[in-house]
Structures are given as C-alpha cells and as structure tokens.
C-alpha cells in the first residue's frame, strides 16, 4: 500500500508504545515520555512530551511493498513483508529468538507467477491465515491465502528453477496457498471482514469490490466501482467500509453493497492513506500525496444504514500535525484516544493528538453540557450555599414560576407576584399595576363605563394628558393651624391616577387613611409616613414613624426622624430648613429623604421628590398628580415614561399602560432580562387588539409556549392557551383534525362533540341510549357504524368502561379531574402506520405493557413510532 521508498508506520497491535517505520528497512521504535530517566541519549523528541527510541532495525527484506503485523500476542513482533516479486516473508524485529518465533521467521510464501505484492492482511481470528493481494497475472490468481503454519512445500520445486529466491532453503519456502481467489485481476487492497472471519473483501483492478466467502469461493458479491484502493473496515462499525480512488473516498455499507452510501468531497491530489480511528467512533483520517494536512471526517452522527434522502452529516476538518514538512504516512495509536504518529518522507516523526471537537448543548432546564472526547462536562446552576448571591438564570426562574402557576391567577392578579416567588420588585410592581387595572376594569364593566375601561389600560400617561378641569386648593397642615402655601391640584383624572397608584381606593372617597393602614401593616413605615406627609398630615406622619420605631424589629432611628420632622418650620431662612436640605442627602432611606425634600422645597419645584429614583414610580406619580400643575404634570410623566422605557423598568407600565408604549417598554425589559413569560402574561391582558397583534407580542407568546413545550409543561401550556384564547379570541385555533367516516367521508365530529354532553354515566354502559336517539356509535351522516375499538371491540363512540371494580370509586370520588380523564379515555386514537386503534384509554393501558399493536397478527410497534408518545409531561395537571 505504500511505495517502497516512502516510509509508512505500523503500530504494534499489542504494545501501545511500539511502532515500526518501514521504508527500505524496518525500524522498531518505542515511544516514551520525553526527558524521562528511561529515555536514552538516542531518543528522538517527537512531540513536546514524548520521544521515540530506536530499538531494532531489520534490513533482511529488500523490495518491500507492504507489511502486516501479526495480530496475536504470541509471537510478538512477527511481521509479514510483501515483496515486489510477490513473495511474502515472515520476519521479526528486536526479538530474542524464542522458539515459536524462530520457527516462523524467514519463512517464505512464493506465488506461482512472480508479481508485486500489493497488500497483506492477517486473519483476525485464524491468525495462521495471511491473505496476500498481488498484481495481475494472466494465468494466476491475485489473492493467495497462506497458512503460515504450513511445514513444507508440498511440490518440491527444483532448486535451479528457483531463480529469484535468495536462499534456497526449501524447507522455509511454501508454494501452495490455502486458497486462491480472483483470477485475471489484480488485487490492490483487501481486508478480512471482522463480522465473519471467513469473508474477505477484495478490491480489484477491474474496478470492483468483491466479498468472497472462503467456505464457498465460487460465490461472491461484488460491485463495480472506481474506489478500489485502501479498503478498510471501520473498527467500530463492522458493516462500514471505506475505500478510495485518487482523491475520492467512498463509504460503503456492506448490507447495502450496491453503491457507496456516500462519497466524501474529492481532494485535488491523490490519496495515499485512509484510516479509521480505532479509539473514536466514525472518525476517518485521510492523507493526500505531498500534503502536510490530514483531513478528518467525523461520521459519528451519520446514520447507518444511511437512507437515500438528505445529505449525510459529516463534519470535515483539517489538522496539521507538523507545520512545514509534508506527511508521507500516518498511523492512529491503537489505544490512546485520537492520537497518531505521522512520518515525513525523510523519516521525521511526530506524535500528535487530534483535539476533539467540543460539542455543546443547552438543556431546556438551564444545564449546560459539553463533550470533549470521552469526557462529558455538565455545568448546572449551583444550588449550594453561596449560590443565593448569584442571580439565577431567567430560564430557571421562568421554569420555577411556571411550575408555581405564575400568571395563572386571573382573579387576584396581584397574587401572581407571590406565585413568582415574591422577591422581584419589578414583578411585584407589574402585578400590582395589573391588579389595579384589572380591579378597575371590573368595576367599570359593572358600571358599563366602557370608554373609561380603555382609558385605564392606556396608562397614567394618557390619563394625565386628558386631565381637565383641574382645581387648585391650598390646604392647611392637618392637625396644625399653620397655613401652607402648597398648592394641591384636583381633577377627576388625577384622582383616577391616584387610584391606579393605589393611594386612594376606588370611589369618590379620596382619603388615604386605608392605604396608610395597609402600609403600616406591611411595615413600610417610611413610605407610610411619606404618604401621610404628602397628604399634609404631618402629625400622622410623626405618629407612623413612632409606631414604626416601637414595632418589632423597628428602627429606633425613626424616632429621631420623627423628632426632626416635628421641628418643621416654614420659615424660609431657619436653621432647620438649612440643615434639613443639606443633611437629607445623607439619609439612606429614600422615603425619609423625599419627606425632607418635600418640606424644604419651594412650591412647584419638587425635583428632590420627583427624581428620587429609589422611590417607587407609583408614589412619585401620585405625588406629581397631587402637586404638579397641568403644564408640569404631562411633562413630568412623559419624561418619566421615557426613562422607564429606556430602562425597561416594569414600574413604568403604570404610566404607559398596555399600549404601544407599553410594548416598547416591555421590549426593552425583555431585551434586558429575557423574561418572555411576564411579557406574555402582561400583554395578553392588553385588551386592545392592536397590542396583541404587535409582532413583538406574538413573538413573546410563541416563545413562551415553545419554552413550556421544551420543559414538557404541557398542562401549563394548555392552560396558557386556554387563558390566551379567553383574552384574545383570535388566537383560538381552528379545528385542524377531523375524523371522517369511512363510508360517507363526512366528519363525524358532531357525534364526538355530542358525546360528552350526553352525560352518560358508566352505569349506562351496554345500553347505549334508546334506539330513537341518534346513535353516537354511528356516523351522523350515513348512520353506518364507526370502527370498533381494537381492544373492547365496541364501536367507537361507546363510552369506555374502566375496570368494573373501579366504577364505584368513580362514583364516590367524582373529581373533576377524573371526569376529564374519563372523557379523554373516550377519544378516538389510531396508529398512523397500521391504522389500528381504539379508545384512547384502552390504547394507553395496552401500550403500558405491550409494544406491538393490539390487533392480532399486526406486528406494528405503534407506540415506538410515536416519538412523543413515550415522553411524560414534567408538570402535573
């Protein structure tokens, strides 16, 4: 297989550290770690870590054409050398002459007609058998199988006629082969088939590959092809064979031997070596002449047998083991993974390991896996201690939230925040907003104020714009007779906005006291105090702070703040004012900070309050609605809205509502967080069709549904779809599958849909309605009976009977869930392959224990054909 002068490499089949380089002579090398004590002065460094030591040289066999290493352990290091004149000589390297080897070394196998020996192969099982592939001779066979244990040559050949034999010790010359194959043809390459050691694959000159069975040599399977060089069997896939011709490699499946399953991209130069990697599935290395690049073809994911359809998935890449020198041959290491030694024409060797491709996969449950060689690495979110500091991935969060039914509480919308874990201020805000919107809408619906309903969902920004008829009042500090010159504005829209902010409850009452009570209960002392103060009730504010300080886990500093607050004076130049306005900035609590900002600022200029980013948007907006005039308010709201939109802050939904602005805001939120779940649920509530039709919204919804599918949360997905179809009727899918009658071809869905409504109990089983009623077991169109269930043999449409003992259970525990299941059990189901089927419930229970179709004599493995049939949803109903 190699030209006599270009070196080739052979690894020892049993010593992972030894190989032979053959060119004009055979040289045995041992490979070892570089620089170790073992390595002697003569060691050649062949990589950064390894060095090769020359152990022995054998130059007894001139005109070498091919070499094959004896495959068995004993005798080790026995080599068969095929010569240019067709003789095969057994030789050995670096052996102390032990008895077994001695007998064999020097033995020659001589063909009747001399011609070049192209290839040699030891039988992997009957290791006495050595197949030699020779060039063509008009009167001789091209494949000779020798038995190396043959003791003598049966036909005594006259010594004088052995013209070409170097030594005439005829005891060592064998001239009678065990088998002769392939007349009138040359054999360019051959290999034994590992699946059946009596079979031999030959590649002949006449452009064919042939498989011979030694038990019956007159029979053979063969195929015409150009690719007749270097046949080699995939060690991991014994039906897969590679062969090549010039620049092209053909891959064969011996079970479908008519044509190559595929050919690899043609190389511009002729190939000289093609070798399967023995340590890695489906990896083929090819080398072309005068090249320093080894091309690797990864067929790991190529299905075998490969069908006619589609392109095979082969990953091709090139590796360059040594930068300058061209490579004359390569040999994979027999056991070390992906390792090979390459040799250049001037015998420079290089130990080289092909770096494995890294393949990476995300699971839908946020774990990341990657594989490199035989190693599989998993990167999962660490749930151990210290992990709390690291924020969980949004996919994990969404999955957990989906599992806790986040978004599904449509009655008490704010509770969804608790379902989501209750630790995300953004979600808390959006849920509160949603809740407010929802509550008000409900009320509006009751009052049939439809126009206002749309106003609600259009957000405070639009409400503020429409504000008209504002009245201005100046109020005293309540509980104090001191006059203030703080103007406060009122209008219908402003109080609506305040309601939406949650400061005042619905109705004409504008008292904030209930809100303050709620805040007190939740322990939000500072916020409550601030709200009280903004309602000009400084006494209440002080009272709240006191309460806060004295409460459990209360902050005693609140008392200090209360004291400071009580010293309030409206004197413009007082020390109090001066100190407050400078020291307030050092306060850590934002609500305390804005309280003093409010007290120390001039009327109409409340920037210290309005632009305190740490304060909830709803409070700032409520504040603005109270204290900004009609000119300032829309400007402020606009500014804040844009800020929120840019930041993707969900608090801003209060301002934007579920309008196009809201979608913009949500877009930047999704861009920032990837939380399509919240986006989907939130936008579904936007009743205006325009918002729902927005492609972004549709995209979020579809992505969320896909996510649910990927997590196998099919029940959640179904719930979501139901929820969605309620809010967005246009999303309701049309019926896509109909069951049609075998006879009239009409849809029988009438009877299907009718069935559950008839409310048939299981007790009625067997008396399927009175004859006057339209039978559900027959087609409503033509009245012909529906097919029978393969299991209960009843016509379809008949309710399923469960086990008789179970009936009572059903009666007693009439759970809706069981009812639903029972309905599903009545469904029609059938295999698309064999077309047998029956009641879904029956089929499900049948395939729990069986793999084949219930119809006798049908061997269809219906359930296995259903790729999703064996998947189990990972959520519960």
């Amino acid at each position, binding site marked *: 297989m190699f030209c006599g002068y270009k070196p080739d490499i052979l690894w020892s089949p049993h010593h992972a550290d030894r190989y032979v380089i053959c060119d004009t002579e055979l040289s045995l090398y041992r490979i070892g770690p570089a620089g170790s004590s073992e390595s002697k002065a003569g060691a050649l460094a062949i990589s950064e870590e390894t060095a090769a030591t020359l152990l022995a040289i054998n130059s007894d066999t001139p*005109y070498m054409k091919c070499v094959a290493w004896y495959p068995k352990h004993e005798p080790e290091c026995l080599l068969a050398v095929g010569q*240019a004149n067709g003789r095969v000589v057994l030789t050995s390297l670096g052996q102390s002459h032990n008895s077994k080897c001695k007998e064999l070394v020097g033995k020659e196998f001589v063909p009747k*007609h001399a011609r070049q020996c192209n290839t040699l192969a030891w039988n992997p099982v009957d290791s006495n058998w050595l197949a030699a592939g020779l060039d*063509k001779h008009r*009167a001789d066979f091209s494949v000779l199988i020798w038995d190396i244990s043959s003791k003598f040559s049966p036909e005594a*050949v006259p010594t004088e006629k052995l013209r070409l034999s170097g030594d005439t010790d005829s005891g060592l010359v064998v001239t009678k082969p065990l088998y002769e194959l392939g007349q*009138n043809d040359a054999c360019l390459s051959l290999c034994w088939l590992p699946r059946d050691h009596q079979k031999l694959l030959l590649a002949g000159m006449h452009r064919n590959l042939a498989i*011979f069975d030694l038990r019956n040599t007159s029979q053979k399977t063969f195929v015409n092809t150009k690719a007749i060089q270097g046949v080699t069997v995939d060690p991991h896939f014994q039906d897969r064979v590679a062969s090549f011709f010039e620049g092209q490699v053909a891959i064969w499946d011996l079970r479908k031997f008519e044509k190559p399953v595929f050919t690899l991209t043609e190389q511009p130069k002729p190939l000289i070596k093609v070798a399967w990697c023995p340590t890695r599935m489906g990896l083929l290395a090819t080398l072309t002449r005068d090249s320093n690049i080894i091309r690797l073809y990864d067929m790991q994911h190529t299905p075998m047998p490969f069908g006619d359809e589609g392109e095979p998935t082969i990953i091709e890449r090139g590796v360059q083991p040594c930068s300058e020198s061209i490579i004359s041959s390569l040999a994979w290491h027999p056991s070390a993974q992906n390792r090979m030694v390459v040799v250049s024409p001037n015998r420079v060797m290089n130990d080289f390991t092909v770096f494995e491709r890294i393949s990476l996969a995300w699971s839908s449950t946020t774990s990341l896996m990657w594989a490199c060689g035989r190693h599989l690495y998993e990167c999962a979110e660490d749930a151990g201690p210290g992990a709390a500091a690291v924020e969980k991935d949004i996919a994990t969060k969404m999955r957990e939230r989906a599992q806790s039914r986040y978004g599904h509480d449509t009655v008490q919308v704010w509770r969804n925040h608790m379902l989501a874990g209750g630790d995300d201020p953004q979600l808390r805000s959006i849920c509160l907003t949603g809740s407010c919107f929802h509550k008000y809408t409900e009320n509006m619906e009751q009052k049939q104020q439809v126009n206002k309903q749309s106003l609600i969902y259009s957000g405070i920004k639009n409400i503020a714009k429409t504000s008209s008829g504002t009245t201005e009042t100046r109020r005293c500090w309540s509980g104090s007779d001191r006059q203030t010159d703080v103007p406060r504005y009122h209008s219908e829209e402003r109080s609506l906005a305040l309601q939406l902010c949650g400061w005042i409850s619905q109705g004409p009452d504008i008292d904030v006291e209930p809100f303050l009570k709620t805040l007190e209960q939740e322990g939000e002392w500072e916020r409550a105090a601030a709200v009280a103060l903004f309602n000009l009730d400084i006494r209440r504010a002080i009272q709240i702070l006191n309460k806060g300080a004295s409460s459990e886990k209360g902050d005693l500093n609140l008392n200090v703040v209360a004291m400071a607050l009580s010293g309030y004076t409206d004197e413009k130049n007082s020390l109090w004012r001066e100190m407050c306005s400078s020291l307030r900035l050092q306060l850590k609590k934002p609500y305390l900070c804005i309280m003093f900002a409010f007290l120390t600022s001039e009327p109409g200029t409340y920037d210290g309050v309005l632009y305190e980013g740490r304060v909830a948007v709803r409070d700032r907006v409520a504040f603005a609605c109270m204290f900004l005039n009609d000119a300032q308010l829309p400007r402020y709201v606009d500014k804040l809205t844009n800020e929120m939109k840019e930041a993707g802050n969900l608090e801003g939904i209060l301002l934007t509502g579920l309008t196009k602005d809201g979608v913009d805001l949500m877009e930047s939120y999704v861009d920032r967080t990837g939380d399509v779940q919240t986006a989907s649920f939130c936008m579904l509530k936007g009743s205006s069709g325009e918002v729902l039709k927005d492609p972004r919204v549709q995209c979020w919804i579809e992505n969320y549904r896909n996510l649910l599918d990927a997590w196998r949360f099919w029940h959640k997905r179904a719930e979501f779809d139901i929820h969605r179809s309620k809010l967005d009727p246009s999303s309701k899918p049309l019926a896509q599958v109909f069951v049609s009658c075998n006879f009239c071809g009409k849809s029988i869905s009438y009877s299907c849909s009718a069935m559950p409504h008839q409310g048939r109990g299981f007790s009625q089983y067997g008396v399927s309605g009175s004859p006057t009623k339209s039978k559900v077991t027959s087609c409503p169109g033509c009245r012909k009976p529906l097919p029978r269930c393969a299991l209960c043999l009843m016509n379809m449409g008949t309710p399923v009977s469960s086990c008789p003992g179970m009936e009572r259970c059903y009666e007693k525990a009439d759970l809706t869930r069981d009812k639903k299941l029972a309905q599903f059990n009545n469904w029609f189901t059938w295999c698309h392959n064999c077309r047998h089927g029956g009641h879904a419930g029956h089929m499900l229970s049948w395939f729990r224990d069986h793999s084949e179709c219930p119809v006798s004599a049908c061997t269809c493995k219906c359930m296995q054909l259903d790729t999703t049939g064996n998947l189990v949803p990972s959520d519960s109903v």
Partner: protein
Amino acid sequence: MDLHILDHRLRVTSISKTGLEHYTHPLIKLIFLRNRTRCKFFSLTETPENYTVVLDEEGFKELQPSEHLLVEGSIWLPLNVVSNGNASSSSQAVGVTKIAKSVIAPLAEQHVSVFMLSTYQTDFILVREKDLSVVVETLEEEFNIFREEGGESVPVQSQDTWKGLQRNGREVMQVTVHPVLIPENQFCVMSLDPDTLPAIATTLIDVLFYSNSPGEGASVNQDLECIKFFSFTLIDGYVSLVMDTEAQRQFPADLLFTSSSGELWRMVRIGGQPLGFDECGIVAQISQPLADSDISAYYISTFSFDHALVPEEDIVSVTEMLQAQRKDVPH
C-alpha cells in the same frame, strides 16, 4: 464472464529496422519516462522484419511521421476478458486458448479482424473501432460487456439497429492456411516492478536497439533456426517482457519476475507472407486446435506476422497438429 472494452484508443504502427534511429528518442521516453508522457498503453515488439509499436493516441503523438513509419489506418480498441473470479475449473489452460471458443471463433465467423496482444498479466484482443458494434452484438450473448470510461465501467448494450443480420459487410473470404515457422529458441515471459525499470535500463536499451550489432547471436539469426523476437509492453503501469533465453541471460536475475516453475515457451510464427490486417480467422486457426487440446498459449500479433507461444513440452504435439491441419485443407 465479463468483457471489458478498455479506455484506450490504439494505433498499430511499424518502424523499419533501418529507421529505428529516428525513433529512439520517443521510444525511450515512452519506455522509461512514464511521468513525462500520458501514454498508458505501449507495446514494442521486435521481429526480424521490423519493430511493431502499438500505442494509444497520446503515445502516437510522439512518433513523427516518416518513410520509416508505417501506420495502420484504423483506431483499435483493446478488449479484455475477465473471468469474473469464477475459477475455470475445467481447463488449466490460459491465454488465448481460454478465449478461443468464446471470443476468437465467434469474431472470426463474423469476419472481424483481430489483433492479439498477450502480456504477462493478461491478453488483449484488439478490434477496429468501426467493428465494435459487430463485436458487441456477437459477444453479448456470452459476456456481460462493459465499456470503461474515465475509470467507470459502463454496461454496454448493442443497439437495436444492429440486431438484424447485417454482417460486417465483407465478403466471405476463402480460409487460407498460412505456413508456420517454428524457430528453435526458447522464450520466457516475464514481468518487472516498474519502479526497478531504471535498474535494467541499459540492458533493455542494449537488447532493444543494438540487437543487430554484430555479436554472438548474429550468425544464428541468419539461418532462421532462431529468430530475433523481443517484446516489451507497458500498459497501465504494468510491464511485460517476452524474450528468448539468450536475451534473458543479459538481465540481472533478481529483478525480473516469472513463474516459480520457470516455464519456457516455444514459438509458432504464422504467415509466410506479411499477413496484413484485413484477413480474419488467423488467430482462430491456431487457437482452435490449441483449445481442443487444452494447451496454453501466448499470442502476439505484429505488423507482419502473428506469433503464438506454446509451452515447451507441448511443441511436438502442436507441430503435429498444425501439420495435420495443413493436410486437411486443400490448397
């Protein structure tokens, strides 16, 4: 059995003995410098009359036309019989004998002129390109016929228009029995690793081009007891040599391959007058009786005469057989 129509388009030429010096350059290039030419089929046979050169069109370009070069006008296509791996169990005979009944005789009946070229590796049957359809039609019953094109074997079906009984168009010619000459020298058929061709270059050049120089063999050649016959072929990278034992002695022994039994062959030269290329049935005349007696043979056609090589031990029976044949057919 498969019949392959090989992907070579061949010319049959002859170089006169005196004109050889004009052609030494192209010939040496074609023999020794394989990388310099795209010639894939080259055969050079020296006979006492001339040098017959059979080569493909690529090689033919190298030969300059001159008065010393005779060219047969047709394109010849080589056919090759592949036994399809089924060992011919009945007969041990090989070469032209094996195909005598299946190929040679039917073609002779259809008046297709053939030009035989046996080598160490195989036997080529050269037919004229224009006869191809007759050949296909004649042989398709017996063989699966493939035409090799660009490395692929393409199955060939005869065109239906030829299905009729249209013959080759030539008139049936009287079968003439040609005189035969059986020289005394022994021949051997050998091969060689093409890589070692340079090692025997000087010997080969000496034998091929300087055989007429006065030497030990010159006087022997005169009396036709022995005839000068040397054939060198280089086809698809395979070398085949036919030479007499005398020439063989000049080559280093360890480089030439031959059979381990060291078999030797005797020659039967057919034709008293140059045979020309149109006469049919000449090969059949010889191969038929050899096939009947199951005797192996090589057969090498040249520009002037045909040469059959038969095993040394069979020459007596072959001689008798041929003499009997001459008696049977009245002149």
